[in-house]
């Protein structure tokens, strides 16, 4: 047990602190991320790239800093930026999911064409996975692509496509081999969102905002070479993408920050002139959450150590999404209860402005429910924890012989 940093990481820490002291004033406000990066953000991203604080392990020929992967370095960088409240770089789906996937499976041309512009923020990607009829059962995707005259011709519909309304490109999971079993009939295509035949429609959610879109494809033509890893390999590629998504350490910074905000809120809010933090029920709920957050932070330290040692954390990692979203919801639930009736009449300031506390908490409270559903719903997570983590038997398949992908 050693919670101190070794000399090389202390040196990195000092280097980052010096960087922040010199350049930090140019940073955009952290957070956001649900809109296209503005010029200030793009300039800042470029500065971070030049210093190797983003794209750190991406090979130099594709625009990165070419360093050896080191989770502890990544953790030091993340925590220094978080502590200084400085924007730590783009974390969109292109940067965190597509780029590592292409580096692992893409052709030389694909890597050269997309990695650099994506990490610079010049190309924004969206993810074409979920469909109206195929959410949790992702491998059953029915959007189809047929090869005609050197082009994939795509028809179908995707849903829950975040950032599609401003994205330049999409990585798309679609069915190219309708005669093959469902997991073997998928391919992974890269396509321009400006292609003729694409119709994007913002999907307004319960938060009142349009964080997602529906995307309709009518005879959309995609050059044949825009396939990753070959025909019928789409499920494999999608899982590599998900692996990269999951390999991002479950971040305890968010719940820590929320807890701190919550403590402030309970100190400053009153009913009948008594601060809520002095009221037994509110205080005990806050204390329970503080205990949970301490446990969660320690769990993350454990995962970080295991990742640094190259140990597969197994079930300890599988619980992160389920446990983390539930904890997030309990935190925002206490916040909306502390705001109480006074927090109910809120109005969002819109996509491009900063919301007040009541709006932020209320939207987070609803958005947290979305997080339990998206990215593999929590019931799917519980299947994974039970079946892969605890080695419990799978649910017997119903009608496994049902034909897939015909029609």
């Amino acid at each position, binding site marked *: 047990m050693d919670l101190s940093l070794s000399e090389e990481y202390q040196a990195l820490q000092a280097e980052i602190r010096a960087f922040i002291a010199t350049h930090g004033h140019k940073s955009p406000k952290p957070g956001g991320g649900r809109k296209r990066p503005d010029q200030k953000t793009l300039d800042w991203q470029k500065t971070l790239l030049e210093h190797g604080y983003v794209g750190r392990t991406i090979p130099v020929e594709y625009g990165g800093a070419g360093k050896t992967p080191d989770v502890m370095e990544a953790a030091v960088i993340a925590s220094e930026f978080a502590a200084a409240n400085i924007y730590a770089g783009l974390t969109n789906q292109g940067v965190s999911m597509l780029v590592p996937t292409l580096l692992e499976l893409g052709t030389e041309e694909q890597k050269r064409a997309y990695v650099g512009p994506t990490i610079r923020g010049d190309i924004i990607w969206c993810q074409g996975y979920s469909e109206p009829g195929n959410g949790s059962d992702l491998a059953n995707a029915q959007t189809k692509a047929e090869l005609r005259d050197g082009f994939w011709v795509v028809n179908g519909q995707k849903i829950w496509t975040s950032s599609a309304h401003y994205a330049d490109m999409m990585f798309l999971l679609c069915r190219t081999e309708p005669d093959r079993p469902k997991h073997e009939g998928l391919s992974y295509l890269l396509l321009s969102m400006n292609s003729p035949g694409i119709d994007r429609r913002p999907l307004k959610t319960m938060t009142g905002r349009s964080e997602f879109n529906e995307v309709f494809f009518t005879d959309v033509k995609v050059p044949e070479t825009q396939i990753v890893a070959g025909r019928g390999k789409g499920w494999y590629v999608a899982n590599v993408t998900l692996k990269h998504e999951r390999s991002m350490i479950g971040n305890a910074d968010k719940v820590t920050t929320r807890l701190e905000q919550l403590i402030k809120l309970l100190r400053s809010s009153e009913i009948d002139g008594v601060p809520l933090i002095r009221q037994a029920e509110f205080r005990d709920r806050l204390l329970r959450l503080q205990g949970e957050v301490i446990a969660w932070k320690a769990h993350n*330290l454990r995962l970080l150590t295991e990742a640094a040692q190259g140990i597969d954390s197994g079930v300890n990692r599988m619980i992160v999404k389920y446990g983390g979203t539930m904890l997030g919801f309990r935190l925002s639930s206490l916040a909306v209860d502390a705001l109480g009736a006074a927090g109910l009449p809120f109005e969002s300031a819109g996509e491009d402005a900063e919301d007040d506390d009541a709006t932020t908490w209320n939207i987070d409270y609803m958005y947290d429910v979305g997080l339990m559903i998206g990215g593999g719903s929590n019931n799917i997570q519980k299947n994974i924890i039970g079946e892969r983590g605890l080695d419990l038997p799978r649910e017997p398949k119903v009608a496994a012989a049902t034909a897939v992908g015909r029609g």
Partner: protein
Amino acid sequence: MEFGLSLEQRQFDDSLRSFLTDRLPMERLRALAEPGGGYDEGLWHGLAELGLHGLIVPERFGGAGLGVLDAAVAAEALGYAAAPVPFAGTTVMAPLAFMNSATEAQQDEYLPMVAAGEARIAVGFAGLAGQTGTASATLDGSRLTGTISGVMDAGAATHFLVYLRDGTGALVAANAPGVTQSLHRSLDRTRPLADVSFDGSTAELLVAANDKLAAARRVLDAGRVVLAADTLGAAQTMLDRAVAFAKERVQFGRVIGSFQGVKYMLADCVTMLEPCRGMVWYAAHAQDGLPDEARLTACHAKAHVADVAREVARMTTETHGGMGFTDLLGLHYWFKRISFNRQVLGGPERCREEAAALQGW
């Protein structure tokens, strides 16, 4: 940075666990538990060979000089086995009391006996711990009078160490004049509770600390962390057994672990319980090396692990169906171990209130 157990700690854990598995098969545990005395000569001496008694006693007094984290590792293993061993009080809190509150001469006199397993010192608090029951003891000079109820790990105590409200430690031999002890079987048959009365009994005072009260609280905090670790181990046993049962038991022509109703309960258990392990390690490490976080994390670990373990105990018993409710299966020993640990040295509500007070809430 390395947040986890060292190779030595894992090896110690392995050897302790295999010793306990060997010595405590179900029928043996049942036989030891029924009298409810919480102590077995053979088991105690066997643990001495593993170096358990001197675990945190400094090397110059014949111990291994390890820390609360090592004690937490041992406690988790003991909880996993539901071992009837007076560990938290005798092996952790008592030596820590000497290290925190006693003079060098007092340490020199007692710690070698503690390390050898010859002195078994039960620790009680006259207040401070937030335990229900009687806790009234007063000192007149070096004469101790009063009653402390619910003292744990007293089954074979040679001495009682009572911390008074101001942090003064009063050490009294169990056979000293004026000491009356009544040992009660508790809900948890692997550990009894003693009501101890003193009537002008001669005490040796442990008052060497600069801040007596802070020293007493350090002892209490370490005890709480060790109980949290014991609870974690007990809950882990229940979960492991429930998972194994769910893979074997067939109903409606299917192994019950394939039903999502059962699978999801067990997934919930592991999702709640696994972060408790990191929490216990962190809180234990804080006792050893992060003084600013020691009290807060001890209070929270004691409270949070107790709450999680109650849910795990309930759901894993349910997973076993009717068998889980029988005496025959013996699962209840762990259910009761968890219940015991929850109530002694302050329940979750009390521990959280202390955490609030610490932060000025």
